[in-house]
């Protein structure tokens, strides 16, 4: 029978995705970019919409929320998962509202409405609609195509931001920034300085990719960031998340880079697609760090100092730094 098989198939998929998330985050499995995570999350949510048993929008939202909570718990540092889930929930709400026939304007919560309506709206999304399923799936497909095109859309704006003979600095490895710079390199000649970002040294791969595209690249160590900053015209970085207060959650070392750029009054540009924008607020400075095993920093072969040293501080993602001026957020298109 199609029903139970579909369900077991679905739960299998969800479980597989969860374990993938858990593994991928520790750096042991294949490192997946945020775009892939976003795409897979959305695809999985589409599958849930298609195959799970639900009768009304409310049911669907409950299922998605439940699964979503499990997904975010599997890898809290991957905020794109949470962002995508919120997007899909919003899609469901919109489709429901459209099916019910209420107009767009009335649907928007004006300040007046908020004050006068008193209490939560009575929407409990219980009304079943036949076409809701197909509408939601169609909307999710649109979302998926949107996700496909984010990197290209950002890269298209590259020439507006890079002039010729510029020196650009970046840190670590970001696929968005790589596409951005490669696109600009087709028409302009400029130099790129890549900070390698120990201990994983993702910057090395970024540098080789950029140099293969014909861009003059230099690899520097993290320690030399401030030393060379005086000759840099722009700093272009990618990020993992953009927080609600404008702060960034980005690869370790970005805070230092931003401080150095501020000292030399160098503009800092962040290339971030829409799915990286998160409604989370950093209440404390320490809430967003992610740590990995200190083995990368001080390997166990150096045992005699290892057992006497306090080594649990190997953050891979750094805190937000909304207090610094970040001049523009490309990617709002």
């Amino acid at each position, binding site marked *: 029978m199609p029903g139970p098989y579909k369900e077991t198939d679905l739960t299998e998929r969800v479980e597989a995705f969860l374990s993938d998330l858990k593994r991928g985050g520790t750096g042991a499995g294949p490192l997946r970019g945020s775009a892939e995570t976003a795409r897979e999350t959305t695809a999985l949510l589409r599958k849930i919409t298609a195959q799970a048993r639900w009768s009304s929008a409310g049911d669907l939202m409950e299922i998605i929320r439940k699964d979503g909570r499990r997904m975010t718990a599997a890898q809290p540092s991957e905020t794109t998962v949470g962002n995508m889930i919120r997007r899909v929930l919003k899609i469901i709400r919109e489709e429901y509202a459209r099916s019910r026939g209420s107009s767009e304007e009335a649907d928007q919560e004006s300040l007046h409405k908020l004050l006068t309506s008193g209490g939560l709206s009575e929407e409990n999304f219980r009304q079943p609609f036949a076409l809701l399923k197909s509408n939601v799936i169609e909307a999710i497909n649109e979302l998926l195509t949107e996700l496909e095109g984010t990197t290209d859309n950002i890269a298209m704006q590259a020439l507006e931001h890079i002039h010729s003979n510029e020196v650009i600095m970046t840190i670590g490895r970001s696929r968005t920034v790589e596409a951005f710079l490669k696109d600009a390199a087709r028409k302009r000649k400029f*130099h790129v300085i890549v900070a*390698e*970002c*120990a*201990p*994983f*040294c993702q910057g*090395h*791969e970024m*540098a*080789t990719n950029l*140099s*293969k595209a*014909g*861009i*003059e*690249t*230099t*690899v*520097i*160590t*993290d*320690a*030399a*960031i*401030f*030393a*060379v900053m*005086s*000759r840099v015209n722009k700093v272009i970085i990618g990020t993992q998340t953009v927080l609600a207060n404008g702060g960034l959650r980005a690869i*370790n*070392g970005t*805070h*230092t880079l931003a*401080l*150095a750029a501020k*000292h030399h009054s160098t503009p800092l540009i962040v290339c971030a697609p829409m799915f990286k924008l998160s409604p989370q607020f950093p209440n404390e*400075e320490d809430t967003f*760090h992610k740590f990995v095993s200190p083995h*990368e*920093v*001080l390997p166990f072969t*150096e045992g005699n*100092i290892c057992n*006497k*040293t*306090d*080594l649990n*501080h*190997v*953050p891979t993602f*750094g*805190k937000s730094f909304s207090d610094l001026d970040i001049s523009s957020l490309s990617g709002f298109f």
Partner: protein
Amino acid sequence: MADSGVIDGPGRKDEIERAKSEGKDLTKEEKQRLRKEKKQQKKIKEKKDDKASQENEKEKKPVTSAAPASQPPTQPTVQKAPSAVPATAPVSVPASEASVPADKPTKTKAELKAERRARQEAERASKQTKKGETGQQAATSKPKAPPSDLQPVVKRLPEHIQVDNPDVLKKLAKKLERQQIPLRSDYGYKVSLFSHLHQYSRKAPLTQQLSIPSTVIHPAIVRLGLQYSHGIVAGSNARSVALLHAFKQVIRDYTTPQNEELSRDLVNKLKPYISFLNQCRPLSASMGNAIKYIKKEISNIPSNCKEDEAKNKLLNCIESYINEKIILAGVAIAKCAIEKQKISDGDVILVYGCSSLVNHILCKAFEKNRKFRVIVVDSRPRLEGKEALRRLVQKGISCTYVLISAVSYILPEVSKVFLGAHALLANGYVMSRVGTSQIALVAKAFNVPVLVCCETYKFCDRVQTDSFVSNELDDPDDLIVTRKGTTPLEGWENESSLGLLNLVYDVTPPDFVDLVITELGMIPCTSVPVVLRVKNVDQ
């Protein structure tokens, strides 16, 4: 006589006219003087002709060797006194008349020489003041030869920051050939911003090109050079002490050849050694100061000193230099830091890399039972922090170890930052291991005090505002690393647009540094030129 007449003509006329205007006849004495002047002019002119032919071969700017054509006021910068003197002597003669004491009509040759020299001094003094008042200063007779006095106007740039100038490279090659030292060739693609600096590979040490046994270079120096180029001896104090010990060995093994003076020959012997060490690894500021001190001590050895005595004296000098400037200075700095409560109980101290002085301070503070913990920050590719970590942990100090990219995470816990220095520049900038300025920047952003510990022998007359003009480029292959089974930078030489930059030093602006602890006390960063001036006066 006719030649000198041409030169002397205007001068003599002046004098005669002046004498006439003063209403006296030329006395007998004055006539004799004039005759002697003429003779001296002739001699000076002959000497000048000789020197002019010599000096044309040197690289100095030729300054109006055609002396007759120039008048003293029109010579803006005078570099060679002999060429200047003939043209100006006639003018200076009346002026210096008054100053030259005991002007007897009958003089010996030595007295004439002394008189001429005094006149030359007077002429130079008058030029320096650029006014007519000349006579009174002639009495200050300097012991050095005249040409060296006028040198400071042209500054000779150090060779190691002019690698992009092919003329300088050629000159260097010639000099090394003369001294029989092999020239080390640059390696790898250099980042365009640093094309004026050398970049060597550790896999090609200089000693491979030396013949064994080397007759020119003392074996202790060869060993030292290898230790430098491979990083076995690293850190500015260690390098200076190793250098001084090697020089002590050289002095012990030295014998003065016949007809040579120890004070001059030994200095000449040391020159190729210094070039060799420079080729192995560029000299640090502290080493430069130590070498200056040794050379001064050697040249101050009186010529009547016996060889053994002189050698003992030099060895003692070097011992006392090491003792005073490095060891005792370190003790004084540690005492200063601990007693003035710069390390108090409950402190969390951040240190960067491996500075022997900072490690010494922390160990001493721990011995005095201060309760603190240390965070050691380290950076690739040298990873010197591991050595510091080893030393501190052996003493029993509780330490944390992070990489420099995590410093903005760990700084809120830190109460003080202690940094070592490679050199302190005259404009207050601190030259230190690359990454120091970054730590100071982030510490400033978090309002954590930054203390730099530095002995005074590392103070340097140079001025630098960025880390580009004068730096050291280490082997770029050090950046290559294998992570997760892949080595992305493996074939970087084949990529034409890929460059690796391995900087060694950087400069920290003085506004990031709160305090400098030296053996003279605690001074702000901007007081470095004051200390330098005081030291120069002392010497």
